[in-house]
């Protein structure tokens, strides 16, 4: 690791002041410290935000407000989360290992970086790590890469699970920054790469995530299905988050989000429109998959993700609509 200066912020305001002077925030550090060891991230100044008091889960109207510093372990184990937003708990527990979840935080998880092997290998071209250097993944080993939302510059996935559940649950990211507070819907938080893959999300310099807000519980059936190379402790090849309500044999309401399929946590309202008001059937699920994957494009080794996503979607919907 390159040497760096470190300060501890005792309040969100102190953290914001440090961020305003160019410091990088560190919370659990489970991703950042690794990136610093590999010199992919080389901040000169860090500000630890663990003691800013943003580590509480509290009711927020009919919803729930999860502080940015709440650990993944605490969030997944919270009785309110398990009762009313089980999708979130399932997704968190499907990710990483218990030892990492004990340190990793809600805000940090949202900001985790891709696991593209070329991003991590500083001898390779990567537009996300070094703008304009090229993309070694397009013609390289791209089995884990995205098939939706890609650009000429980048085909790396957003790798996480938690954000996929939050997207299906219509969560909102609350931030503080130099221009005041912002409420950013999860659907607008992550950025597709376009011609600037270096920025994974819409956070501005000096802006700090303070909390994630969950809206009122839907009471729907919630399932997180993660397909991966081994049964636990692996990143998703494809994941599906569903929150669905049946009424009189038809799908009355449905939210669907997908992980490791796109360059960002993926949600497509057109897929949900296909399903709503219909009686569940394999033909309907196949139609939904067609709409979802209409623009999907593989790069060779990851072509399999397209049929895999269709099957994962059908299996998840079959489970969620079963009487």
């Amino acid at each position, binding site marked *: 690791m390159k040497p760096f200066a*470190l300060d501890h912020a005792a309040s969100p305001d102190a953290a914001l002041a440090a961020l305003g002077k160019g410091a990088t925030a560190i919370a659990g550090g489970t991703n950042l*410290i690794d990136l610093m060891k590999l010199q992919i991230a080389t901040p000169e100044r*860090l500000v630890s935000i*663990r003691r800013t008091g943003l580590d509480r889960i509290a009711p927020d109207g009919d919803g729930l407000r999860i502080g940015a510093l709440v650990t993944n372990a605490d969030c997944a184990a919270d009785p309110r989360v398990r009762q009313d937003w089980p999708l979130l708990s399932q997704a968190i527990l499907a990710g990483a*290992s*218990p030892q990492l979840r004990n340190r990793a935080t809600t805000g940090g998880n949202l900001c985790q970086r891709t696991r593209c092997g070329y991003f991590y290998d500083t001898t390779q071209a990567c537009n996300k790590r070094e703008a304009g250097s090229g993309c070694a993944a397009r013609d390289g080993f791209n089995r884990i890469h995205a098939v939706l939302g890609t650009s000429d510059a980048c085909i790396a996935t957003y790798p996480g699970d938690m954000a996929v559940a939050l997207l299906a649950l219509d969560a909102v990211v609350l931030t503080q920054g130099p221009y005041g507070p912002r409420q950013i819907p999860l659907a607008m938080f992550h950025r597709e790469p376009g011609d600037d893959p270096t920025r994974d999300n819409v956070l501005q310099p000096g802006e700090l995530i303070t909390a994630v807000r969950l809206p009122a519980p839907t009471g729907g059936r919630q399932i997180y299905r993660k397909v991966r190379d081994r049964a636990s402790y692996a990143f998703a090849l494809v994941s599906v988050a569903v929150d669905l309500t049946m009424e009189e044999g038809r799908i009355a309401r449905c939210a669907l989000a997908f992980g490791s399929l796109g360059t960002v946590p993926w949600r497509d309202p057109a897929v949900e429109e296909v399903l709503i008001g219909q009686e569940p059937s394999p033909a309907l699920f196949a139609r939904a998959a067609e709409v979802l994957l209409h623009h999907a494009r593989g790069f060779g080794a990851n072509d399999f993700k397209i049929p895999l996503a269709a099957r994962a979607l059908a299996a998840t919907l079959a489970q969620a609509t079963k009487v």
Partner: protein
Amino acid sequence: MSLHFVEFELNGCQIDGMVEARRTLLDFLRCDVGCTGPHAGCEHGVCGACTVLVEGQAVRSCLMLAVQANGKTVETVEGLSGGPKELHPIQQLFREEFALQCGFCTPGFLMTLVALDRSEPRPNAAEMREALSGHLCRCTGYQGVLRVIDRLTEDRK
């Protein structure tokens, strides 16, 4: 260079030192304190050999800065038993069930299992197995560890 004073309780003893901000807790324990139970395996948070308990929770000491342990309670494999000739009950089970081969990964396995065994409510066998997914063993000596879990959870079947 940014030097920081850190102090924390390590296996019941108060320790302190001056560290660079970039010093990981793992390197501080091994190189500065001489506490070599936590092992440096992958050093990227994947293998679990460096697992220690901070405030009773199993964490990766390779992905934590030493300064982040300031004021906390840290436990390593060295603190498990009462003395050099004694074994912690879970270490005893590892011995009886041949739950290790080369032993490199063992301190990590032990720390995660000790934390789980202390937690309330006590986890069942399936939850313990899931937690051990964060520990890799290159000798693939997993079956013995699973027998340890069976014995640890016998009273909860």
